[in-house]
C-alpha cells in the first residue's frame, strides 16, 4: 500500500515537473527579456577584468573562409603581478605571441623575432576586450541578449552593435562563472556570420601553469630599435571620409613587406577595428575595383588616374569603397 502511494506521488511529481518545464509562462519571458545596456557594459567590464587578472589556459579555433586555425592561449599573473601571456598557433608555420609585462614579442615565419613595448597585444582576440570598453561606447551599442550553453557552460550573449551602418557587429558569449570569453562572432550588417572564434577548452587555475613559468624564465627577443618615422612626415594624400570615431594611429611611407613597393600608408582605428589605407603610383592608368574577404577582413584595391589605392580592415566592403573614393591630394591646412 505504502509503495503504491509512493509510486503515485513520484508519478504526479514528475508530471508536474514536465509540465513546469514546458510551461510557457515564466522562464521564457525571463530569457527573452532584453536587459539594459548598463548590464551589458558590466559584463564587458567583467570580461576585461577577467582577461587581465585570471590564470587561465584555453584553446580556441578561429573559423573563417571554410578553414579553422587552432590556437592555444595561456594567461596569468605571477606573485609579483607580472602579466604573462602566450598565443600559439597549433597548425602550420609558427605565429606565436608572447607577453611578459609590457613587452610583447612576435614570432613569425617571415620576419626575425622582434619585441615591442606595448600594453596592447595584437592577436586574434581584439585588444579592446581586455581594455576599457567605454572607449568604443560612442560608436557601438552594448546589448545583453540572453543565455545559452557554450563549451558546456552557461553563457551570456552580449552584442556589440555599431550605431551606424559602416561597421560589423561583434557577438560575445561570456562565461557566467568566470566572465571569460567562450565564443566570438563577427556578423555582417545583413546578419551573416563572417568569422568566429570558438573556444574548445577552458581551465581556470589558482597558480601559473608550467608553460607560463617557463616563459617567465625564458629570455624574450630584445626590444629592437625599429626605425621610426616622424609622425609629421609630409604625405601627399589624405583620407577625407571615415566612419565616426576613427582616429589616425599612424601615417608613414614604407615599402611593402613582400613586394618592396613603396607606399604611402595611413592606419586608422576606432577602438575596435583597424583600417589601413595605402596609396602608391601604378604602371596602369585605371583598374576596376577588386576586393576579397579574408573572414571579416576586406581587402580593396583599385587604380584611379595612375594611382593604386588599397583599403584593408574588418569593415563592410561598402565602407571600404567609400573610404577609397574619399582619398584625395592633401590640401594645405
Amino acid at each position, binding site marked *: 500500500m505504502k509503495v503504491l502511494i509512493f509510486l503515485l506521488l513520484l508519478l504526479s511529481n514528475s508530471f508536474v515537473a514536465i509540465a513546469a518545464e514546458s510551461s510557457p509562462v515564466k522562464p521564457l519571458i525571463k530569457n527573452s527579456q532584453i536587459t539594459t545596456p548598463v548590464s551589458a557594459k558590466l559584463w564587458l567590464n567583467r570580461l576585461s577584468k577577467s582577461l587581465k587578472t585570471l590564470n587561465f589556459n584555453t584553446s580556441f579555433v578561429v573559423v573563417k573562409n571554410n578553414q579553422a586555425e587552432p590556437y592555444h592561449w595561456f594567461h596569468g599573473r605571477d606573485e609579483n603581478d607580472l602579466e604573462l601571456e602566450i598565443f600559439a598557433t597549433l597548425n602550420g608555420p609558427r605565429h606565436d605571441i608572447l607577453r611578459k609585462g609590457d613587452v610583447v614579442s612576435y614570432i613569425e615565419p617571415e620576419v626575425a623575432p622582434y619585441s615591442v613595448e606595448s600594453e596592447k597585444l595584437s592577436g586574434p582576440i581584439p585588444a579592446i576586450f581586455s581594455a576599457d570598453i567605454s572607449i568604443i561606447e560612442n560608436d557601438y551599442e552594448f546589448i545583453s541578449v540572453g543565455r545559452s550553453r557554450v563549451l558546456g557552460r552557461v553563457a551570456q*550573449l552580449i552584442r556589440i552593435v555599431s550605431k551606424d551602418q559602416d561597421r560589423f557587429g561583434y557577438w560575445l558569449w561570456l562565461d557566467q562563472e568566470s566572465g571569460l570569453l567562450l565564443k566570438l562572432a563577427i556578423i555582417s550588417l545583413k546578419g*551573416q556570420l563572417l568569422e568566429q572564434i570558438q573556444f574548445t577548452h577552458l581551465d581556470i587555475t589558482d597558480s601559473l601553469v608550467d608553460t607560463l613559468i617557463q616563459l617567465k624564465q625564458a629570455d624574450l627577443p630584445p626590444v629592437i630599435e625599429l626605425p621610426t618615422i616622424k609622425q609629421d612626415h609630409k604625405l601627399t594624400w589624405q583620407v577625407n571620409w571615415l566612419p565616426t570615431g576613427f582616429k589616425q594611429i599612424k601615417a608613414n*611611407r614604407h615599402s611593402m613587406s613582400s613586394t618592396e613597393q613603396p607606399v604611402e600608408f595611413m592606419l586608422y582605428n576606432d577602438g575596435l577595428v*583597424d583600417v589601413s589605407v595605402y596609396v602608391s603610383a601604378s604602371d596602369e592608368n585605371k583598374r576596376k575595383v577588386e576586393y*576579397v574577404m579574408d573572414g571579416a577582413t576586406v581587402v580593396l584595391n583599385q587604380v584611379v588616374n595612375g594611382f593604386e589605392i588599397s583599403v584593408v580592415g574588418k569593415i563592410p566592403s561598402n565602407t571600404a569603397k567609400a573610404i577609397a573614393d574619399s582619398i584625395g591630394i592633401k590640401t594645405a591646412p
Partner: protein
Amino acid sequence: MSENKFEKVSSLVDNYQDVKNENIDLFDQLNTDSVLSDTWSHYHLIGDVLRDELQSKISLDFSTQIAQAIADEPTVLAPKQSTLFNTVKAKVVQFSKPFGQIAIAASAAGLMIIGVQQNGAVNEIVMPSQVFQTTPLAGFAAPVSFNTQSTNRLSEKQLYIEQQRRFQALLTDHYQQVKLSASKNNNQILPRQQVEDSAK
C-alpha cells in the same frame, strides 16, 4: 495542509462552486504565494493539454523560442559578394615571397616556403576558383581554337596570380602594421620596410 491547498486550487480550476464560496481568501493567497500561483498555471496547462486547447498558447511561445534560438545561434553563411561591385571575388591564396629578397636564416626561410606552399595547395582543394572558368576577364568568349584558348588561359592565370599576390601583400602588411601600432612608439616599421625619402 499544503496538499489541501493544492486540492482547493485544483477544484477552483475545475470550476467547483462550493470551493468558491468556501475559500475567499484563497484568491488572495494565489496572488501572493508564488508556489501556489505556479501551481495554478500548471493546473491550467494540464487542463489545456487534456482538453487539447493548447494551440494558441504554443504558437505564442514558439515565436519567443525561435527568436531566442536565432539570437543564440547565428546562421552560418558564406560571406556574399556585395552587389555594388561587379568584380572578381576570389579567395586569398598565400604565395611565397620572390626568392631574391629572403634575407633571413636559411632554415627558417625553407620552413616558411614549404609551409606556405602547403597552405596554398590546401586552399585550392577547399575552394577551387571556378571564377575563371565562368567569367573570362577578357569579357568575350574566345573562339574555339586550341591556341587562342591556351594563351588566354595563361594570361588569365598570370593576372589571377598577380591579383592574389597583391591581396596577400596587403593583408600581410596590414597585420604587420597593426602589430607595430600597438607599440608605445607607434610609428615604427620593420628595418627592411625603410624607403629612401625622396621628399626634399
